[in-house]
């Protein structure tokens, strides 16, 4: 039979753990709501941007001659990896790290002379890839998660675009958790640069607006709208990852709280059993003592 004091101690420690996990769950739930709001807020912007892009591009969706669309020979690849700064969020970080490792192997299998660099956002992947041998670590930007806004992403996007333009890298990919709902995240590997030619939609009304004025000119418009689209794409990746992180943590903490509750129930049962056994024992002792005196 379990020791009474031992069980009591375990009950206390499980109880305080449960308090922590349920508090973390609530914190994540409120952060998740904020992140979801910013995803929703971005939606009209993205929609309008792609609408304007399709108007500017018209039938000519070939981007391969622009600065950011040129397909170059694959010799240096940059993987941008988005994870979180803090743990306790289930498989959120592990999945990304696994996917990144797989992607690196894939690239090496294709051609082992391709150079792969990793740029990490999130302490978890930074710690991991810094220690890895054979992977070039390009740097990190963990502090981005403390203050996630468009301005910071702007700088990162410009930096990445510059690196691509000047030929530092021939391909830039982003590996992140796409936000589906609070319980499920999809690990996604997206090619950031060179720009993927947008899938041509069969536009019904484009002909009716054929007499648009493009000021100052279509080429300048294209030149300035492509970076906008790229920044928008990067921002979306970041807020998706942010929302996914909190969704994953909320789910993980919810499960942990449930587990703790189950454990607590079992422990309380065995505590009560042990207490009852002790009382019964005591009664038996008293009774037999009294019996012995009577004789």
């Amino acid at each position, binding site marked *: 039979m379990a020791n009474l004091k031992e069980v009591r101690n375990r009950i206390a420690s499980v109880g305080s753990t449960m308090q922590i996990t349920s508090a973390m769950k609530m914190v994540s739930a409120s952060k998740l709501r904020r992140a979801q709001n910013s995803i929703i807020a971005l939606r009209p912007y993205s929609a309008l941007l792609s609408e304007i892009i399709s108007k500017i591009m018209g039938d000519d969706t070939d981007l391969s001659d622009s600065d950011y669309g040129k397909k170059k020979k694959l010799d240096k690849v940059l993987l941008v990896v988005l994870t979180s700064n803090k743990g306790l969020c289930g498989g959120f970080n592990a999945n990304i790290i696994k996917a990144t490792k797989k992607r690196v192997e894939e690239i090496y299998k294709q051609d082992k002379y391709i150079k792969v660099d990793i740029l990490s956002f999130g302490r978890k992947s930074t710690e991991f890839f810094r220690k890895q041998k054979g992977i070039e670590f390009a740097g990190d930007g963990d502090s981005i998660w403390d203050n996630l806004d*468009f301005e910071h992403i702007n700088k990162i996007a410009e930096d990445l675009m510059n690196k691509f333009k000047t030929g530092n890298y021939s391909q830039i990919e982003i590996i992140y958790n796409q936000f589906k709902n609070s319980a499920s995240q999809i690990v996604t590997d997206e090619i950031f640069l060179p720009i993927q030619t947008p899938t041509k939609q069969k536009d019904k009304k484009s002909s009716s607006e054929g007499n648009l004025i493009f*000021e*100052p000119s279509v080429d300048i418009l294209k030149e300035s709208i492509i970076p*906008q689209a790229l920044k928008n794409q990067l921002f979306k990746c970041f807020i998706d990852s942010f929302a996914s992180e909190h969704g994953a943590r909320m789910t993980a903490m919810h499960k942990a709280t449930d587990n703790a509750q189950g454990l607590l129930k079992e422990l309380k049962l065995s505590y009560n059993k042990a207490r009852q056994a002790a009382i019964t024992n005591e009664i038996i002792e008293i009774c037999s003592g009294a019996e012995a005196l009577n004789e």
Partner: protein
Amino acid sequence: MRVKIISPEKTLYESEGTLLQLPGIDGSFELLVNHAPIISVLKKGVIRLVDKENKELKFEINSGIVECINNNIKILVQ
């Protein structure tokens, strides 16, 4: 005319307007009611907007794109 100003983080303005002054990339320009359909690029500067009650509103932007079709003006800003 309907004016909608959207940034990646939120919708800054969505209502009627009568005059819109924009920092175009080749110099400032204005949009009034019944302007011809246009798409243009904006640079860093201030958007000046006069609404229905003749009140003047100002928005600072770093860059942007404006689209005006059939008195429907949509501005993407940063």
